[in-house]
């Protein structure tokens, strides 16, 4: 059960691929994760906007790490923050020794150990004690690097290969990393070919001869001719051979006798050097990884405006252009299932004509048929008709006129549809965001006029222009009637129409119904896209939100702007 919004990335806004295309789901995100660029008047998402790192901090000690140190510290906190190797809880430093000054009761001096407040893991398990309580990372690093054979090995390898790469090559540079220059002249080519023919082929005669001597060092003397492409034998610091046969079989034997494994524990330690042991026994605490605050920019090459700028000193934002401030919030809820005996005879195929027939039938039976409220988490059954309420909440200070449709997909769906959607009310108005107390007045006229507005086809002309004239008592009654749809008010006709269109307005939120007919025998997930096109008024007297649009507005003149976005509604799985 989710509603996600579409981001067209850098392309022009266009209807997304249907839900059966798995790749399209990458373009949909929850509203809370989207940004909005006013200059481009477009939605931006995490996948397309340009991120820059504003600052690094340790989530445990909240220390703001200067970016110069970050890489050297391997993106981890270089102070005393460690996480438990068992349960990843931050470890605490505990003094275990006593000093002369303090009483013998409270241990306060060295040695210090790390202890997990959650699972009681202690660094003594890996024989780890510290002499000072500060800068543990450095102390641990010293301890570990002394044991770690990988770095010297790596350095030795580097020096070894360096001789190969920097060794003087014969005059026409052969294609070692054949990227340098294309050969300029054809005669050059023939020259080289001639040379190559006269040269000893490396690795054949030469290599054989050298192999016999047991040493494949740089060719003595004749190094100029063919030695350039030879590499001497690399003497490993500590090879398997040096350790002996038995050591190599250790892990197999250990594995053979294995009694049980603990899930949730990473088997590998921090080192990638294979020491022939499963590293379950010797696990050192890890320094806590740093986290970052990101600055985000609009990815459009001509725009590049900042969308998010965090304040490095606090948890606030200097700039925060989030889509939730610009687009209406779409939510889905209040599931009802139709209970009616009739109309099921035709439910064999999913053709549009038959669906239309069934829909008319349902409408005819509406008075008689019953709808029961269902829990949103209850399983969806095939062959049933459900009615959902979709709520639109307006974040703008202006009313918006919404047109809700199903988008025309650019490509045919990959899977046959398992449901049909019917939207009874396609056009409606969502009231502006206001202070909470001003809604009381608002609702009075909304109740009175909302139904007309709700079903009106023409958007711009029906924006509410006058206040309701009914007294407070009438307003209260109308509000009641919204909640209990069956209670008849003074305007019976309007009531009926309201129930038909199922428009429910309250404050800056409007709820409309949508009918979802699950086809018999359908399986899989019920996912559909909605196209929401809303019209808002921009005029310069009103400080309306989208400033990009405002710029274009003529002074003193009202103007209406459209914005279209797509939302994907996921209702969950059909359970047979």
């Amino acid at each position: 059960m989710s509603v996600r919004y579409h981001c067209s990335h850098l392309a022009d806004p266009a209807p997304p691929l249907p839900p059966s295309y798995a790749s399209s789901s990458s373009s949909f995100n929850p509203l809370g994760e989207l940004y909005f660029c006013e200059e481009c008047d477009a939605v931006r998402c995490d996948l397309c906007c340009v991120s820059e790192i504003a600052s690094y901090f340790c989530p445990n000690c909240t220390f703001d790490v200067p970016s110069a140190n970050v890489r050297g510290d391997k993106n981890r906190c270089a102070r005393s923050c460690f996480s438990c190797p068992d349960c990843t809880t931050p470890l605490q430093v505990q003094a275990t020794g006593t000093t002369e000054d303090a009483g013998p009761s409270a241990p306060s001096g060295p040695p210090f150990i790390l202890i997990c407040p959650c699972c009681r893991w202690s660094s003594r398990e890996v024989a780890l004690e510290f002499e000072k309580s500060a800068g543990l990372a450095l102390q641990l690093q010293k301890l570990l690097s002394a044991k770690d054979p990988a770095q010297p090995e790596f350095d030795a390898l580097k020096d070894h290969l360096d001789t190969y790469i920097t060794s003087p090559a014969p005059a026409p540079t052969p294609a070692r990393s054949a990227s340098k220059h294309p050969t300029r002249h054809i005669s050059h080519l023939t020259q080289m070919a001639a040379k190559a023919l006269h040269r000893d082929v490396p690795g054949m005669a030469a290599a054989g001869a050298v192999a016999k001597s047991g040493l494949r060092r740089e060719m003595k003397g004749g190094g100029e001719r063919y030695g350039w492409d030879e590499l001497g034998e690399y003497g490993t610091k500590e090879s398997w051979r040096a350790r002996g046969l038995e050591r190599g079989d250790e892990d197999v034997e250990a594995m053979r006798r294995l009694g049980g494994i603990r899930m949730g524990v990473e088997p590998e330690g921090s080192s990638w050097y294979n020491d022939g042991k499963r590293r379950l026994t010797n696990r050192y605490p890890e320094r806590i990884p740093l986290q970052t605050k990101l600055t985000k920019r609009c990815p459009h090459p001509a725009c590049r405006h900042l969308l998010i700028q965090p304040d490095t000193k606090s948890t606030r934002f200097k700039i925060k252009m989030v889509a939730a401030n610009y687009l209406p919030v779409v939510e889905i809820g209040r599931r009802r299932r139709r209970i009616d005996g009739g109309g099921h005879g035709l439910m064999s195929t999913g053709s549009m004509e038959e669906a239309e027939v069934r829909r008319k039938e349902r409408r005819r039976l509406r008075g008689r048929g019953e709808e029961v409220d269902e829990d949103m988490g209850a399983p969806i059954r095939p062959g049933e008709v459900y009615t959902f309420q979709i709520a639109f909440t307006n974040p703008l200070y202006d009313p918006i006129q919404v047109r809700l449709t199903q988008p025309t997909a650019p490509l045919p769906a990959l899977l046959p549809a398992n449901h049909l959607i019917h939207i009874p009310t396609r056009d409606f108005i969502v009231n502006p965001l206001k202070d909470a107390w001003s809604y009381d007045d608002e609702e009075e006229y909304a109740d009175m006029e909302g139904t007309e507005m709700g079903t009106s086809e023409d958007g711009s002309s029906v924006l509410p222009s006058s206040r309701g004239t009914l007294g407070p008592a009438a307003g209260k009654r109308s509000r009641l009637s919204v909640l209990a749809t069956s209670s008849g008010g003074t305007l019976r006709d309007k009531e009926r129409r309201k129930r038909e269109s199922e428009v429910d307005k309250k404050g800056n939120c409007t709820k409309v119904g949508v009918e979802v007919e699950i086809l018999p025998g359908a399986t899989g997930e019920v996912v559909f896209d909605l196209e929401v096109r809303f019209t808002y008024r921009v005029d310069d007297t009103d400080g309306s939100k989208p400033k990009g649009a405002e710029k274009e507005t003529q002074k003193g003149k009202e103007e209406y702007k459209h914005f279209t976005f797509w939302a994907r509604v996921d209702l969950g799985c059909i359970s047979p």
Partner: protein
Amino acid sequence: MAASSSTAGAGEVQATYLTPTKKAAFANAEAGPSRARPAGASPAYSSRRHSLPGSRCWKVGLSGEVDPRAVFDAGGDGYGDREGMEIWDLGLDQVEAARGSKAEARRLIRVRVLKQIRAIYTKHIMTDPKARKVIVVENTYLPSYVKDEIAKSLFDNLKVPSVSFTPASVLALAACGRITGLVMDIGWLETTITPVHHSRPLFHLARCSPLAGRRLHRRFKALFRHHARYYPPPTSFSYLTRQAIQPVPAEIITNDLVQRIMQQACFVSTPSGPAAEVERTEDQPMPADLDELDDADLMDRLRGRYAPGADATDVRISTTPLPHETQGMGPATLVVPGWIRERAAEVLFDDEEGEAVSIPELVLQCISKLPVDLRPIMISTILVVGGTASLPGFIPRLHTSLLRSLRPPSSSLHDNENPAPLHTPQHRTAETQAWRKRHLEPYKELYPLSPKLAILNDPSPLDGEGGSKGGSAPRWRPGLMSWVGGSLAGALKTGGPEMLREEYDALVLAHAEKGEAYRYRLAGEDAFFAEMSKQSPGDMEGTVGGSIEDLLPGMALSRAGQGKRGWEADVRVGDWSRVVQA
């Protein structure tokens, strides 16, 4: 230092000379950190940063460092694909979530690659992509469309200054201080064997097989389902007896669980002698179409083959109980029989009917295709890398299997004992018989090389005659070998040909222009033909320059200066010698 000097060219040179120790490179290591998650194809980023992306497991880090900064399972959270385990598959039409549509598969791979690459920068490396060059360590058979998408993500979305794709085989050897060897990469999707001679990978002699991590994973999963025992938690304190459930409920066997067990509890045992050789049950045909997971018959047969002689202990694993079972009564327990742990990897060594050739055979096939001069060199410098190869005991087992295949069968010795006199019918018969039997010993010509056989990173090298190279390599984990090589390459400022962002942009632009021009020309042609079709036959004769009746097929078009739709008559090939590098 180098990284801060931002883009390409000048910065690079300065970095080289000023602060050689501070070069950062990204190594994208392919297969998994751990044994059981090999990466099928793995490109990695190098230079300042390098990375080794595989279809499943990506390794990324900065060059010059010994450990990757992050190793992560890139599959699994793939878009729209709940079962998704790998980012790409062997073929575009095999990508599961795409439902057979190639265009969709391409889009899927694009978003998955992009998402992972962005995660590398923001989550794992935490650095500015615009400041660092990238080395991508690519597997021998990395699909070009994946390479394409990686380049696209890096250049278009992240604006990196340069990318160089470097062959994983060369880098793996470099991590052992070598430039020649036979690199065997046992990844997730496929096993590839690439001979490398003097730092030139011989791609045309490389071999590959889908017998790799994924195959092992599936086999293990099937064995696990049919032969492991599942004990749900007791229903109440008064009734504590727990009944084993077999087969294990499918909901329990998640890919993640299988992965974990394989990483932590699986190993490969080496049969102690010829007696332990698995007997083939050739009389029972294998139903090929049945999914292995549901094939109880096959699983029972495998049990009959594997269980005797396996002496590994059973392993208990605690898991969370299923939702419908009693909660709060402690964890459920899974018991994995020892023989599964010990023998599941046999699938890579057995050559069952209908399967691809086993991994040892693949090695021998590759070697027998090599030039004769290279065979002794290659067979004594086999280097095994890749996530699956990290299974304990894998390499010794491979060594034993190779040796066994190189041992002449006893029967052939008898044949040669009393050779018939030359030029007699008996001799000819014997020759014919030998010729007919040749397929029984396909690697006969390699037999003399068996004393030279050595695996460089063999953890328990057999000290045979001439096998002095075995186990002489540094002890990097097999899954990490290529990554370390990438890190070295980044630190040494070398690697595959480097492509700068400017070049890439120019290329893409040129390509787009060419496409545009072509489309424009096509439109022009279409207009021309539309015009033609409107003309009366008389006018048409004027256009084509002859009588319509006399024309043979194709002639009218050529006379009108046109070929088929989109055909270009006089294409001039540029001077290739200026383009092709010597």
